[in-house]
Each structure stands twice: as C-alpha cells, then as structure tokens.
C-alpha cells in the first residue's frame, strides 16, 4: 500500500496505544477539582471578624478584589442602631443636665458685684484663635450631626430635594472647615499648654467641686482652673482623634481596605458625640451659666471682682507683674 497510508495507520495505532496507557493513569490524578472547589459557606464560616473573602481581579482598583465583606453589616448596625443611642444619650443627656443645673443653681453671680475695674485676661490673638476654632467647631458639629441624624430629624421637615441640597453644602463645609479647625487646634495647644498642666491645686479645686454648687465658695485657681484644664485636654485629645480619623475619611485612598475606613468612621462618630456634649457644657458656663465669664473671650477684659473670685492666684500674679503689690487697680494694658 502507499507509504502515506501506512504512515497514517501507524500514527493511528500509536494514538490508540497512548490513550490505552494514559487512561488508567488519568484516573489516578492526585487532585479532584470538583471536590476541592471552594465552598461559599465554608469560606464565610472561616472568616474572622472584619475579614473579607477576596480573590484575584483584573481591575487596577484593589478594593474590587473583595468578593464579600460581612463587616459592612456590623458597621450598618452600629451606624443606624447603636450610634443614635450613644449620640442621643450624650447630647440630650447633657442638655438635660445643664437645664437642671440652671434651674437648681441658677446663674452663677459675682458675689461682690461688678467692680467696674477691668483686668486683661486674653489678648487679641488668643481670642482670635479661640473664635477660629470655635466657629469652625459649630459648623463641623452641625454638619456632622446632619450626616448621622439629618435623615431622621430634618428630612421629614424639608423633603428630599431640599434636604439633599442642604446636605451637599453641609458636607463641603465639613470637609473644608476641618482644616482651619485643625490649624486652630495646633495653635491653641502651643499657646495654652503651659497654663494647662495639671497640678496639686487642681486636685484641691476638684475636691471643693470648683465652688460650682454653692454660692460663696471660691477655691483658689491660677489662670485656668481644673474644669478649664479638663476642657483644654478634651479639646486637644478629642480634636486630635477627630483630625486623625477625619483625615482617613477625607483621603480614603490612604486606608488599604474598607475595613480600616469602617473603623475610623466609628471613632469619628463616637468621639464627635462626646466632644459635642462636652462643648455644650463649656458653651453653657461661658455664656449664660456664669455672669462675667463671656467677657474673657468677648472683649478680652474681665471684671476685677469676677477675676478675684474665680482666678484669685492669677489676679495676684498679673498684678505683681504689672506694678507694685500695694496698688489695687491694674495699669491699663493694651488689648493687642
């Protein structure tokens, strides 16, 4: 027969022989693909808290490699169930506490009445930094509360379109005013840290309740009493935590995964609620809570009798600096 046909037959025989030998070998493969397939329920059960099922993707955005992240469900429960309780208790609780205090104790008066003489308490720059930080804080707090509670409290009043427009601008204000707020925090820390170091005098002040609960009691204090030092450290530490957590939220690409972002939103939200509650107390005592207190940040000059009652040691230091100890009225010091 022709050589090509015989070659073909030889080839055919070789192939058949190859299959005959290979088939039993194939049945002895070391793995069985279907039996070793990943099972969804196995993977989900094996996940640690906060972990994700991930795989390989062809998309450059690495966040897309997460297939299922169950931690989102826990985060949702926190945001919509636990956080409103924390915020409600902290803020409404503080408002209630302050209302009760005002009713029971009343406005804290200057026992000896206003003297009419003034002493410089805060220089212009200090007031500038305080108002910079404070005004930013008000807008930040309100816009932040809008994100957490706006949907429940404000949306029903204004309808979706108006509320959404308002929320867009609130969000822009929140993001961009955070930067002057952080600047104010840093400068506040630098200019006031030396007067806010806790000391033995503060312990004494606290033991006497700051004299806050009964008229006529005025434990001595230097430039800042223990309550004010507490506010200082709450602002610095709380503000620092808000800044760090907020930094990750405004630049989300800094966080490797969505799990890290979820953590920072929890910090940001919880600290915010407590921070706002503390600031409500600070605003209360600096405005309606105590007569003569607002002048410190308003004009910078406070009444001398007020200063002698609430910051007696500070008055003595200031008067010793300005002139001889015999003179009781301070020399006028320019505000700027």
């Amino acid at each position, binding site marked *: 027969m022709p050589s090509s046909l015989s070659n073909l037959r030889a080839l055919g025989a070789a192939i058949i022989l190859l299959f005959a030998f290979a088939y039993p070998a194939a049945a002895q493969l070391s793995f069985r693909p279907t039996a070793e397939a990943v099972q969804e329920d196995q993977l989900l059960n094996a996940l640690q808290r906060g972990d994700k099922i991930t795989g390989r993707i062809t998309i450059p955005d690495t966040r897309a490699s997460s*297939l299922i992240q169950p931690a989102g469900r826990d985060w949702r429960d926190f945001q919509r169930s636990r956080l409103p309780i924390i915020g409600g208790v902290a803020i409404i609780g503080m408002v209630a506490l302050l209302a009760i205090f005002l009713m029971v104790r009343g406005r804290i008066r200057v026992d000896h009445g206003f003297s009419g003489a003034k002493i410089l308490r805060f220089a212009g720059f200090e007031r500038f930094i305080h108002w910079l930080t404070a005004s930013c804080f008000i807008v930040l707090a309100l816009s932040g509360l809008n994100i957490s509670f706006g949907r429940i409290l404000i949306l029903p009043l204004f309808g979706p379109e108006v509320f959404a427009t308002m929320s867009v601008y609130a969000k822009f204000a929140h993001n961009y005013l955070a930067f002057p707020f952080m600047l104010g925090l840093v400068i506040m820390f630098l200019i006031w840290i030396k007067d806010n170091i806790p000391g033995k005098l503060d312990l004494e002040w606290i033991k006497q309740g700051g004299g806050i609960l009964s008229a006529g009691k005025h434990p001595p204090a230097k430039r800042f009493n223990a309550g004010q030092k507490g506010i200082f450290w709450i602002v610095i530490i709380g503000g620092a935590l808000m800044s760090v957590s907020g930094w990750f939220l405004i630049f989300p690409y800094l966080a490797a995964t969505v799990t890290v972002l979820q953590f920072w939103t929890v910090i940001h939200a919880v600290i915010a609620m407590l921070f706002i509650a503390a600031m409500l107390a600070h605003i209360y005592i600096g405005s309606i809570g105590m007569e003569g207190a607002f002048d410190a940040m308003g004009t910078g000059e406070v009444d001398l009798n007020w200063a002698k009652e609430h910051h007696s040691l500070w008055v003595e230091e200031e008067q010793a600096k300005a002139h001889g100890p015999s003179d009781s009225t301070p020399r006028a010091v320019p505000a700027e």
Partner: protein
Amino acid sequence: MARVKFLCDADRCIECNACVTACKNEHEVPWGINRRRVVTINDGKPGERSVSMACMHCTDAPCAAVCPVSCFYTTADGVVLHSKDLCIGCGYCFYACPFGAPQYPKVGNFGSRGKMDKCTYCAGGPEADSTPAEYAKYGANRLAEGKLPICAEMCSTKSLLAGDGAIIAQIYKERVMKRGYGSGMWGWTTAYSDSPTG
C-alpha cells in the same frame, strides 16, 4: 410580583468577562467605573472558582439603611435603585455594602467623590423610563422593555443567571443535582436572608 435576583454559578464561570463587557457596552460605562466584575478565588490552584459580582439588590439593603440622605429605593420587583440627584457622594453605601457594588467617579477627596454609580439590574433610575435623560444618568432600562439584565443574557456559559429568584434558584438546584456538585449560591445568604433559596 416576581422578586428578581442574580445567581452566579461559580462552577460554570470561566472568567471570560463577557458579563463585564456587555454591561460596559450597554450602559456606556466610563473607564474607571466597574458596575460588574469577576473575582477569582484560589486562582491557579485546584478548586479555583470565579464569581461574577455586582450589586446583589439585597432584601434589606444596607446601602439604603446607611445613606445619610436616603437616596435609595426598592422597586416592586425587588431591584434596589438610587437617585443621583439626591446622592451627596459621601461613600457610606460603599462602607456598608458587603459586595463592594457602589462606584465613584472621583478619588482622593471625600468632599466630592462624585455621584455614586452601581449596577441597576438594567432597570434605569427615577427618571422616566427609556428616555435619553435616564440613559445619561443611569444607563439602559431593559426591564422596562421586558428584558432581563444584559450581563446574564450575554454570559457565555450561562453561569450568571438573572430573573425571578425562585426560578433561578430552581435552575441552579437542578444543575447541582445533575452534575453532583456546586460551590454555593454566592452571596445569597448575605443578600437575601429572608429567602436564601428563592
């Protein structure tokens, strides 16, 4: 009324990305936005499986729950949609979504991530059905024309199923019985906890 769902049969998925390409083409999805993606688990190892993942249109949608401006809504068919007019681009829906469905046109600045975009089950958005305005904002509305999502229609191996949840669950169960194995209805217990089997 039918409650529509997605089901990706990971044992049939060959990672061809036809679903991704079809979605991108049908809605003219811009570069950088990925409504649908294919994730491969145990890549290169025995038991490798690929899953096509997009918005699962969950029953108790976590995205809708956490949205600060409540811009989400669920249609009568169970499709979870949102309004880009109300969206403030805050990113909360992405934090809550178990499947990473929300996409944003800008990165790097929480101030303006841009309006969130995601798989719409080819059902458009709040604008009037099948209008150019709806197409420019949300893409094609196939459901209004009585058609199923294009990703499932284009799947080369019919691994990605879309349609009435009960029907596609039944199809999958028949497959598992006939071939003897199945890696699970990926995402169903997370998304459809009320009736994970259809």
